[in-house]
């Protein structure tokens, strides 16, 4: 087990380095001159050359890459092109808590609603709950998230005034401000938990060991939640970890619609203003989140499903 985790960790490092290199290559593809981004379009050639030299941009690419990786190891993500001498790391750390809060709130809403309804639907396929849940989730899943967000904003913020309107300074811990974004995010991820839960639950409920459990007189609740759920769970947990990793890297759309002060909206702004270091920093952080989430998903799957464990330890 420990050996497996160790090998996964090793791979995680490889993935991270690969992504760093690819992100670094992106800066060569992007047709913007960092020196010009910093100094503006009316800078003299001498000033541009001086800035390039001070940033080490006149050195060979491999040199630059090694320098970049070296600075990354020290936790130095560079300095923003646009916001004076602000460190990118500080910019991102300032916005990260809001994103973490939103991501966890959204997944919590989606996972809890999805799994409870999913189990109920799987127990009586074709029943009332199954039909209502399937129609409701078909509807939700058919609409672009940002359209749902725009409509809810229009109704609850603009017309009813229950929640603060976008682009206002608000405290991320204000529940009223968190409610709408979390619900929209929860709605966006809920249908897949519902689907995954219902599908794997139905699959499990058709297995022989469930018939055995029922035949030996176990209560239905115990059969479903203890026996079947244990086998249906790995897929859902994997999904939850992947979602969380993905969302922690920036809830781009929802943050943009609601003006939520997270790293996703900051990154979109950085792309628009060609502030490459901020974009690269966010890309790396997002990647880190996703890699860690993948690792967590793998490990949990192994812990929960002995079959995959067998295969992995046989290596």
């Amino acid at each position, binding site marked *: 087990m420990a050996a497996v985790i160790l090998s996964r960790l090793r*791979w995680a490092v*490889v*993935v991270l380095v*690969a*992504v760093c290199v*690819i992100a670094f290559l*992106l800066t060569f*593809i*992007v*047709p913007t001159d960092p020196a010009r981004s910093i100094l503006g379009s009316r800078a003299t050639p001498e000033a541009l050359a001086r800035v390039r030299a001070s940033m080490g941009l006149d050195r060979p690419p491999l040199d630059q890459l090694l320098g970049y990786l070296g600075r990354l190891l020290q936790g130095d993500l560079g300095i923003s092109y646009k916001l004076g001498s602000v460190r990118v790391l500080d910019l991102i750390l300032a916005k990260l808590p809001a994103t973490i809060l939103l991501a966890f709130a959204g997944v919590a809403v989606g996972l809890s609603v999805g799994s409870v309804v999913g189990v109920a639907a799987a127990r009586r396929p074709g029943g009332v709950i199954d039909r209502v849940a*399937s129609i409701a989730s*078909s*509807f939700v*899943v*058919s*609409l*672009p*998230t*940002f*359209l749902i967000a*725009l*409509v809810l904003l*229009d109704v609850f913020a*603009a017309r009813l005034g229950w929640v603060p309107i976008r682009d206002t300074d608000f405290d991320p811990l204000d529940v009223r401000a968190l409610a709408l974004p979390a619900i929209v995010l929860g709605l966006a991820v809920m249908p897949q938990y519902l689907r995954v839960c219902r*599908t794997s639950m*139905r699959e499990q409920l*058709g297995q022989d060991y469930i018939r055995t459990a029922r035949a030996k007189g176990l209560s239905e609740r115990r059969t479903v939640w203890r026996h079947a759920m244990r086998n249906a769970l790995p*897929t859902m947990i*994997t999904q939850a970890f*992947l979602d969380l990793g*993905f969302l922690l*890297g*920036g809830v*781009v*759309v929802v943050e*943009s*619609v609601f003006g939520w002060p997270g790293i*996703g909206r900051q*990154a*979109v702004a950085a*792309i*628009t203003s060609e502030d490459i270091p901020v*974009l690269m920093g*966010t*890309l790396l952080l*997002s*990647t880190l989140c*996703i*890699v860690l989430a*993948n690792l967590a998903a793998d490990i949990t799957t192994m812990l929960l499903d002995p*079959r*995959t464990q*067998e*295969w992995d330890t046989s290596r």
Partner: protein
Amino acid sequence: MSRRRAADDTHTHHAEVGTRHDSGMRAEADPSEVGDIPGLTGRSRTWSLLRADPGWWLGITLLAAIVAASVVGPLLLGRAQGQLFRDQMPLDGSALPPNDMFLLGTDRAGHDLLSELLYAGRATLLVGIAANVAALALGTLVGLVAGYVRVARLGLVGGRQVTIPVEDLLMRITDIALAFPVLLLAIAVTTVVRPSLGVVVIVIASVLWTTTARLVHTQVVQVRSADFITAAVAMGVGQRRIIRRHILPHVAPLVSVLLPLGVAATILFEASLSYLGAGAPASSPTWGFMITDGAASMRTDPRLPLLPGLAIACTVLAFSLIGDAIESAMDPRRTVR
């Protein structure tokens, strides 16, 4: 149950397998293939279940109507894409409500909304289907090869062998691709490259194959340690046959469900890209582009963002209904009514 009865059961079981595999491969007895419907298995079973499913027919009808309207509709209306009717527009800069000349009214710039919606339907369907088919093909191939091949041994010149950890390699590449923040990357790319529908298709396909690869891989991993695979291997069944007869049947339901559902997801993904200003170009707008374009009028004229939203919802719903119908028809526990 008496011993005799059990013996009878075994006997009929084998007899059935014998008739199903006329090629004489009795070793292929696979409990999940035999099913609970005598004389009706595999493809014909799926079809008869689909034919009895109202959701399937609703989805197919809806999709056929949308495709027909997008393909034929603009020809019937006879208005060029992007054609402006400035002389008809009110002076205060607002959009025209529905009237005899413009069945759904115009947008604020002076385009016929119905005509633009139909043209946008072509672009939306094109992006959705093309990007998803490409993504799905790549993802399935990667997942299948990674899950089953696991390790490849290549003979080198001079009798030496190299071992390639195919599974690790492919799944780690998938991890690297999965680890890239998809939306940010897509925005970054489309702001660098001049956006066109082709670029959008390539960008979406190259970021969306990873989910399929992972799902297919997980499925193969769960199947490959099953007893019937071990039995087949022990009986000397060839690798190709194991993949075709034992692995693929367990992956096929997943893929045939992911195909329509993936189109739905792709259309929604493109809409998000459009909202962030990195989707289809203004010269060939999609529905996502039109929603974004009309979002500012949500309070004053909700028709502008909501009609393209409705179009997306109907299309995505059609694909989802088809996907759901296929999923439940392939469920081995369903019985034919």
